[in-house]
């Protein structure tokens, strides 16, 4: 399958993250799956005129394109001109080029939350009128129509995340190459369910603190980040704590909150990202699928039953109280 990768209103971080893939040979693995990278802005030799000729051939349909991967938001401004990013050497808005190529490609993949929904670039007043390929935040219809279906019978595949985990991208591309990704394998906002059917909370190492509502109040504390520090891991769709980052990491393991970067509109939640919005002391955002009454009741109960070890360690940067010794051995 011929893969063409373009970048626009983003940071290139999804590509740099992809290069961290845990494999002795990322490109070899893709090649083995039958994926040929015909051009990638960070990796390929071809430059300038060589690239413009190549893109032209795909736009005109002279060459068959299988996978179009787009990284970065679509910058529609100013005034609908696409002028905030004109492709170097051509003067043409990236929005035009992507629109044309999307009609030709068998599958269209939005790599990262920018290309999927608009993402970080759409924050604030959205000066550049940034949007995603098939979404404008939660709303269907971005650069492409709400009902867009690619030649291969799929809507835009949204590998959301800021950045994307390398495994999400590799698994999605390999699934497509092996003919094993259909419309039923995407969730309600176009994300591959192979990573979006999990919650960031799953596998979180702060689990015991969460159970007892023993919460961190300062950065570097070991306690749960949900109650005060803005963490959305109990609601954000992604497998960040079971498919770890850079060997053994994740945001929560790194001590900072999940900001739900796989969700449309995560960049403008209406509150400071490192603070949990609350009403009457109760976080507004409850864990996914949990009835409010249960959460409030369980929270009150578990707080009252918190062991000293958990309570003290939650507000310290180190283990102040180690687990007790079992003098008679574990039964």
């Amino acid at each position: 399958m011929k893969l063409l990768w373009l970048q626009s209103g983003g940071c290139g971080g999804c590509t740099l993250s992809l290069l961290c893939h845990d494999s002795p040979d990322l490109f070899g693995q893709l090649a083995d799956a039958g994926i040929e990278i015909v051009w990638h802005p960070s990796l390929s030799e071809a430059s300038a005129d060589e690239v413009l000729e190549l893109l032209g051939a795909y736009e005109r349909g002279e060459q068959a394109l299988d996978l179009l991967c787009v990284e970065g938001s679509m910058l529609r401004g100013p005034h609908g001109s696409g002028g905030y990013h004109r492709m170097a050497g051509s003067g043409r808005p990236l929005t035009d080029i992507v629109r044309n190529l999307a009609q030709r490609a068998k599958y269209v993949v939005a790599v990262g939350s920018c290309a999927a929904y608009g993402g970080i670039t759409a924050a604030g007043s959205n000066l550049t009128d940034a949007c995603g390929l098939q979404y404008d935040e939660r709303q269907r219809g971005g650069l492409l129509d709400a009902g867009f279906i690619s030649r291969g019978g799929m809507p835009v595949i949204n590998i959301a995340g800021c950045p994307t985990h390398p495994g999400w991208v590799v698994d999605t591309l390999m699934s497509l190459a092996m003919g094993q990704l259909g419309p039923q394998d995407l969730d309600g906002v176009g994300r591959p369910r192979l990573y979006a059917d999990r919650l960031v909370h799953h596998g979180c190492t702060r689990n015991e603190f969460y159970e007892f509502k023993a919460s961190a109040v300062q950065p570097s504390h070991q306690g749960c980040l949900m109650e005060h520090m803005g963490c959305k891991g109990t609601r954000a769709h992604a497998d960040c704590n079971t498919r770890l980052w850079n060997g053994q990491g994740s945001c929560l393991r790194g001590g900072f909150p999940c900001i739900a970067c796989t969700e449309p509109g995560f960049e403008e939640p209406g509150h400071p990202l490192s603070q949990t919005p609350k009403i009457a002391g109760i976080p507004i955002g409850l864990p996914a699928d949990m009835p409010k009454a249960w959460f409030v009741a369980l929270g009150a109960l578990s707080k009252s039953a918190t062991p000293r070890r958990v309570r003290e360690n939650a507000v310290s940067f180190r283990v102040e109280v180690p687990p007790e010794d079992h003098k008679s051995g574990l039964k």
Partner: protein
Amino acid sequence: MSQRIVVGPFNRVEGDLEVTLDFADGRVSAAYVNSPMFRGFEQILIGKHPLDALYFVPRICGICSVAQSAAASTALAQAAGLTPCENGRISAALTLAIENIADHVSHFFLFFMPDFARTDYAGRAWYEDAHARFKAIDGSARRDALPARARLLESMGLLAGRWPHTGALQPGGSTRPIDVSERLRVYGVLRQFRTFLESSLFGDALEVVAALDSVDALQTWADAAPRGDFGRFIRIANDLDLWRLGRATDRYLSYGAYALPEGVLYPAGVWHGAAQALRLEAITEDHSHAWMSGDSKHPRDGVTVPQPDKPGAYSWCKAPRLDREVVEVGALARQVVAGHGLARDMIKREGGSVAARVVARLLEIARTLPEMERWAMRLQPDQPFCSEYVVPRDGDGVGLVEAARGALGHWVSVRRGLISRYQIIAPTTWNFSPRDADGVPGALEQALAGVAAGDRRAPVAIQHIVRSFDPCMVCTVH
């Protein structure tokens, strides 16, 4: 007879780049550098909670995201009058150094060297070897360098949660305390990376490379044995005379790198034939040839308002100047300002060049990794990693750091507890600036002037010169 061509898209530069070249008498008579994408981070940040900057600024750039975090956390700390605790400072320095070293390796293997595998060089004595080793995507170096880079960045999983786009760096230090076992693992990752460097990149001990104190010493060393990929580059650079290609202003700026409790590893300063003090007050951003309204201002007072139809403008990039002069930033600038013998000797002989920039980057890897091994073992698991930060109602701060590709500055103002102004000057903003109000071209524009036209529409030398700066276009305009 003069002729104008427009060259782009440049790839392997992290972002999009367009260069317009005027030729006269068989040489480039003038170059115009256009950064063709604008996103507007400086406007996005206005009105936000100060700590929100820690989530937004890393996302300016996928390759220097930690440098952006470090600049923001430093600026916010200064605005609050806070000095981070010792562990916090060591951890931040180590995290930034890991990113910078990883970026140097990415630049060398993925972005810069593949141009020597172009068929333009078929027939050169080194061509077959360079083609097999460095060919884009297919070359054998990918199987050594990419996994080594990924393994190195596993230290980020421990120190910063993940890379890119960590939220671990804070005004007070780090969100990520390191325990005794984790400290050993970080150290182990660094030692493992040393093995890759010494076996593949240098073919010698890092300390030997770091001690090369002149061009003669470098050449003697490179002649004595194969010396890995560095040796390959030296032979190519000698054959193509990359020592006399791509000279810019020879005026260098460094903000100083790796702020440890006892001081910086590489000092801040300016070098123009001799050391000069860095006066931050002398920095301005000129808007004359940028699609930006307003005129030249110090970044403390700067504004970012696009004016897409502005006459005479040709880039989204503003033109930073120091005392109204063009300066070059990057690893070469850092090592020249820091007084390394080899770096100083290179620019004394032929000025800043394609070869000097690449050599300085590799030299810096060899100098910095041994320090990083020591920093890792200095983290104290029983001491705090983050000092308490209280958001100031009003305050101003400056965060100056060195990204892999050079000097990065953030200027923040907080009023009534919210960000009221945020201005960023990134390394490639300096290097790839357009002309200023005096008509003086930026550093790359100067470096491209005089390049000989070849058989191609755009000479391949242009590719080497552009990439020798290790540009990051997404940071440039932000």
